[in-house]
């Protein structure tokens, strides 16, 4: 069976959403991988909950500073113009509306843009981390995840069955199969993974997808 984009290619596609000057927060998991696909010379500024502002890609072994880490505690590099604050300041930036884009992982996203990403189905507890702060303060929320669960069930659903992180907070969904925008009247399929059709994406997506007039294959 076709599987669509690899995790690295999903991360690469997410990085294409950023514009020079954007201040971007990358969540744990697939989102932190995005930092390695942002051009070294770009003006995109990466912000982390721990107070780090202006970090770069994942560090190579010889570059590791154990106290210079991203949200997932992975060592990263530092870019010129970086700054440090603490968690209180970092979250004042988040809630205060100073972050342009938050990229978060998810278990489920609903057709209204509700996000469920902190409590895994079938697990009694989860970790909310900074995700609830990020969805209420960021100007744009991009969710990135596998299109379906391991056993093939849709993660894009009519209504989330897992506890919510936020209501009507997601703007864009990037998966291994598609790029989907959350519109007031529903989810709009904008791009499909190379070799996939609208029908193949629809069949693993619970809500009915609107089709963008310029629907095309994902370009990297």
């Amino acid at each position, binding site marked *: 069976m076709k599987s669509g984009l690899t995790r690295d290619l999903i991360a690469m596609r997410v990085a294409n959403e950023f514009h020079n000057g954007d201040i971007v927060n990358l969540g744990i998991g697939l989102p932190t991988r995005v930092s390695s696909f942002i051009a070294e010379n770009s003006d995109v500024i990466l912000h982390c*909950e721990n107070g780090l502002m202006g970090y770069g890609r994942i560090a190579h072994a010889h570059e590791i500073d154990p*106290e210079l880490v991203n949200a997932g505690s992975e060592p990263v590099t530092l870019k010129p113009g970086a700054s440090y604050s603490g*968690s209180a300041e970092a979250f004042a930036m988040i809630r205060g509306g100073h972050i342009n884009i938050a990229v978060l992982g998810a278990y489920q996203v609903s057709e209204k843009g509700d996000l469920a990403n902190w409590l895994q189905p079938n697990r009694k507890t989860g970790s909310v981390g900074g*995700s609830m702060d990020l969805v209420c303060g960021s100007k744009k929320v991009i969710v990135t995840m596998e299109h379906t669960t391991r056993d093939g069930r849709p993660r894009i659903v009519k209504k989330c069955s897992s506890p919510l992180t936020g209501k009507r907070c997601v703007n864009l969904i990037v998966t291994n199969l598609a790029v989907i925008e959350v519109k007031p009247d529903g989810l709009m399929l904008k791009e499909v993974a190379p070799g996939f059709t609208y029908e193949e994406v629809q069949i693993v997506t619970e809500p009915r997808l609107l089709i963008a007039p310029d629907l095309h294959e994902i370009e990297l």
Partner: protein
Amino acid sequence: MNKIFSSAESALADIFSGAVVMVGGFGVTGVPFTLIKALSQQGAKNLTIIANSPGGRLPDIDLTLLIKNVQVKKVISSYPVYAGKISAFEEKYLEGQIELEMVPQGTFIERIRAGGASIPAFYTPTGVGTSLTQGKVKKIFDGKKYVLEFALKADFALIKAHKADKMGNLVYHSAARNFNPTMATAAAVTIAEVDYIVKPGELDPETIVTPAIYVDRIVKGEKYEIRFD
């Protein structure tokens, strides 16, 4: 006044059973590993631990030590469990042996900031419409709904900094700052583990992040190798 203690053991000898203890650190960064080890040997029980995570990334040196030692009755945390592995905390939590108060990370640190500044409560937009704020007081300001959250204070704060001068002024290194300077403000007794202790005047006043007023005790930390797996 001498704030420098010759050992971690002596610096936290008076942490009592039932105490509320804040512990700094984000993942593996800025965690006071020397103080955690000493507290696990000191043995105080029924502790309420206020920490972003109750351990699990480096279980042989992090707060897992206190959890395994049955010293903790409650954890207030934003990141209690990790994907893909079951920590000592999660096991005890599922067995009903430890209570958990899950708090969104921004609310977590703001509650501590409020505690240190004697602001008893505040309204925040975070978590409105989710199960984590169910049953809490809400209020609408300018058409948007906010939730009332209460300050957090502690009997002790165990924090990690890079350098201290003998007065107790602290500077941090990189992302290891995280929750530490805020926790330093919100506890009756703040104990700082540092990599270096220098003379007053050696730290540039412009660079000091935690002024000495917040720091009661200073301990030179042991060296720990941080593994990234």
